[in-house]
């Protein structure tokens, strides 16, 4: 099952590293990363595969949200269907 992790907030050292490490810890495979920094404002979207995740999806959502709070960023983790339904016919 694919999910989309989005990270938004003030740029700082180590964002991609920390989020990737969290994915690694949960055995979540990263399929695609898009990332921009505009005027010190960081946004990243990661498409991940959670099929082999060691934790339930709802727990992954909470884990990533907490990680975001620790770094002063907003991290959302959402099922890919929500994007597929909205932007594709």
């Amino acid at each position: 099952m694919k999910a989309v992790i989005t990270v938004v907030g003030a740029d700082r050292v180590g964002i991609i590293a920390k989020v990737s490490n969290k994915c690694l810890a949960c055995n979540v495979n990263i399929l695609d990363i898009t990332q921009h920094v505009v005027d010190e404002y960081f946004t990243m979207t990661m498409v991940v595969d959670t099929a082999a995740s060691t934790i339930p999806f709802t727990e992954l959502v909470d884990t990533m949200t907490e990680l975001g709070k620790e770094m002063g960023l907003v991290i959302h983790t959402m099922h890919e269907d929500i994007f597929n339904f909205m932007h594709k016919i």
Partner: protein
Amino acid sequence: MLEHYDILETIQMLKEEHLDIRTVTMGISLLDCAHEDIDVFCQRIYDKITKSAEFLVPRACDIEKKYGIPIINKRVAVTPISVAAAACKSSDYAKIAATLDRAAATLGINFIGGYSALVHGGFTNSDRKLLASIPEALSTTNCVCSSVNVATSRSGINMDAVAMMGHIIKDTAALTADRDSIGCAKLVVFANAPEDNPFMAGAFHGVGQPERVINVGVSGPGVVRSAVARAGDCSLSELADIIKKTAFKVTRMGQMVAHDAAQALGVPYGIVDLSLAPTPAIGDSVAHILEEMGLETCGTHGTTACLAMLNDAVKKGGMFASSFVGGLSGAFIPVSEDAGMIDAARGGVLTLDKLEAMTAVCSVGLDMIAVPGDTPAETLSGIIADEISIGQVNHKTTAARLIPVVGKGVGEEAEFGGLLGSAPIMPVHPQSCARFIQRGGRIPAPTTALKN
């Protein structure tokens, strides 16, 4: 391939623009619960409702977590009670309302609709019993919602029922006077009531519906307003297109959740109601969309035209987004549940007469209108009759949810709380229509009803 921009747009809709699923409503048929002993009937409906919807709230919460999209309300709608209880010998229908309330509490839902009667052609004995019980039922329960369909485009208008509803609303207001007559906020008078409306207070499970069904109501006034704001000073042609595309995206969420909920609960998917339904929260107002379209204040000249365009664009976009569209499906203009409407009414710009014109082009009707507590029953009936006539002649659903707030007058406000919001008391015309209402009888169906 998911585009970065599309992902951020979705997140913004959900997190900043109040995109949500307004309700997941399970419709449940009570037709097989009939029994002449009202206590047996009550036990049967309690068992059927609580068993059918046992997992409605937990499964809906799972879907919220899975997609990160809030599902604000989980509700139940049942067969109109005047139909389901027709075999009961007893007249104590308030007991049935108490049972529905108890079932709602067991399930953890906030409203249960269907304490209803369909009297557009005339009254059955059961209809009369139900109507007589409405004031007591709504004043002694928390979650029960009631509706009465008094007209269809094919049957005409039951003006005896319209006259009765004026008195029933007054009695309900009196019995809930200590709470700003909130009982009336749970009572709707309809023309052409839909069988599959997921929104309260008018939801009921029509007699043509299956055993159980899942109907979903989406909501995105904030999303539409943001899209209109971003469009700047474009032409109306471009604006209509932008609203249509935005409505498509909003309604797709409803389609997705409806499918998921139906699967999770093992219940057929019914419809998505694509209505733009506001809440009192800032940024969630239909009136503010109209103002963003170019009106200084909602209710001024041009309001009906803006609303007509908005309503039509929402329907066009929403229709393409879902397999089945139903319910009310248009723009809601409930005065107490919309921050912009509240301000416009308070300022005297949005009047009852203008609201009546607006209902000709959008979906709900005269909704959550607080009027002075001393408004005569016949005047309430006259307001209802006007609204019902618009629906009947134009082959659309219209409704009236009027609240004569006991002890309050123009310049004061009623406080209902939560999603029901607060409402400034609006003035009504003092000239009487009592002689017209007291004539009674039926207004025949219009010529346009003869479509064969």
